[in-house]
């Protein structure tokens, strides 16, 4: 039997919290800070791990939508192959591990190349900014628990973004 990843994370967090943290000299502030962040990181990973496939899928959807919008407004751009590949991976029931993530990276790289090209007109740049909204929202929602958002209510709920 393979132990559940969640169980393994759970016991690691418990050991660090209940046994290691109390044994640490309070004067060792650097070690205290790193232990606190190590525990916080493990807790976040434990919470997010079951959602990771859904996040990878949604990130690819967002990147494809961005690329399609740019391609529609600037048909001369070299985006169609990456878009077609993304479509296939979104439809696939059992894609290879990491394939969707790699396809997202390829789409973003292709759109970035458009953004950097000197001949790309301002309306296309504005479109890239506009259509980057969903991916930015997803990343912010994913990292909300880190506590960096000054106004967390401004960030869409992760469950809604992932259609859970």
């Amino acid at each position: 039997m393979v132990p559940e990843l969640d169980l393994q994370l759970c016991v690691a967090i418990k050991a660090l919290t209940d046994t290691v943290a109390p044994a640490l000299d309070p004067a060792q502030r650097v070690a205290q800070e790193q232990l606190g962040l190590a525990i916080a990181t493990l807790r976040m990973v434990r919470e997010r791990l079951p959602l990771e496939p859904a996040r990878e899928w949604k990130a690819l959807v967002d990147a494809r939508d961005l690329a399609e919008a740019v391609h529609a407004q600037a048909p001369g751009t070299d985006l169609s192959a990456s878009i077609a590949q993304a479509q296939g991976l979104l439809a696939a029931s059992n894609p290879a591990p990491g394939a969707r993530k790699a396809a997202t990276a390829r789409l973003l790289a292709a759109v970035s190349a458009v953004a950097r090209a000197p001949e790309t007109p301002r309306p296309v740049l504005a479109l890239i900014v506009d259509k980057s909204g969903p991916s930015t929202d997803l990343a912010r929602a994913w990292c909300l628990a880190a506590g960096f958002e000054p106004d967390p209510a401004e960030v869409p709920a992760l469950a809604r973004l992932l259609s859970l």
Partner: protein
Amino acid sequence: MPNQTDARAAPEERFIADVREAFAVEPEIDRVLTRKLRNRAGPGYSAISLEDLSGSTANLIRAHLGDDFTLSNARWLGGGASKLQMAFDLEWREAGETRSQAMVLRMEPPEAIVETSRRREFEALCAASGTLPVPRCRWFDTEAQYLPYPGLIYDFARGVTKPSSRPSQQVTGIGTNFGPELRPVLADQFIAHMAALHTMPLDVLGEGSAFAPAVAGSNESVIRQVNWWRRVWEEDRLEDCPLVDVAARWLIENAPPLDHVSLVHGDFRAGNFLYDEDTRRITAWLDWELSVLGDRHQDLTWTSGAHFGHYAEDGVTFLASGLVPAEDLYRRYEAASGLSVDPVRLRYYRIFNDFASCAHMLATAPRVAGGGKTHQDVVVGWLSMIGNVIAGKLRASLAEVL
């Protein structure tokens, strides 16, 4: 671990030559960024013992003081996300007298969340002394002749970055809440110090300085700064972000000429000053590694960045750096400095700062944490998540100007 197919993980000389040619930066910035790339394929950070680091530090001190000194009580200092810091006590003989002083070694890890110059930081601290409370600088070792990595030594400054009665779980002073009583007392000093910094004479940074000159009436130095972070984005990113590329283009095309050249701290915010909890006086300004000769609006917008502030007790008033509403800050800064606060430049530097922060947090932070390059990868990895908050703000700002 870094992706082995990633050309940035072990950059070849052709890659390095290309980025150097594509992005013209100040010579000292070019030096540290080029060194970073050439060392990238090398080992990550290996834990250094206090004993070993004390020995290296003693070697640096010996080169300046000779053998007649004692280094004792070495201890790690927390805080900050980028440099390794060790405090120690030094006793030495000078002009026939015995002197003692607590000091701090501030040393780079193999790669940091921001790759900067110890020589520039040393010069900025020296330049600001006499105008602002800063630790007295002693010695530096920019080529790691004595230390494991480049570093500098300055006097230990007493004080705290946040109230001991209001413990914060956040890193590097982000979102510090000073409380309603202390807030106005610190805000007065904060604004006065920023005004003094931006109006101080710059002749102290003379011939041979590691800061390239900046000229009022020209935007050349502004473009150099944009290029600094474009180059970092090009060197460090693991994944593209089209928004960042749009920002880079807009910043180059809209760079405003300087109307006044100031020494800009570059990270002027809560968390980077110490204050005495009894006297409630600011005792030291720290972390000068991002300082530049440039535009005061860079500091003004940095300190009022959404991620460095928080809402007051009324739930509606947003406090820049947890101290003062941004509009009050600008009005009082104008009165204190005699310099104008220009809304167009504020908008430009808000985008500039968010662009640079995206480079730090979305490109460099995951790159160096993934490579195991720092003494606190867990802090750097955690901090990288703030990049998404900043990217959201950058997108909103770009939507207004495009």
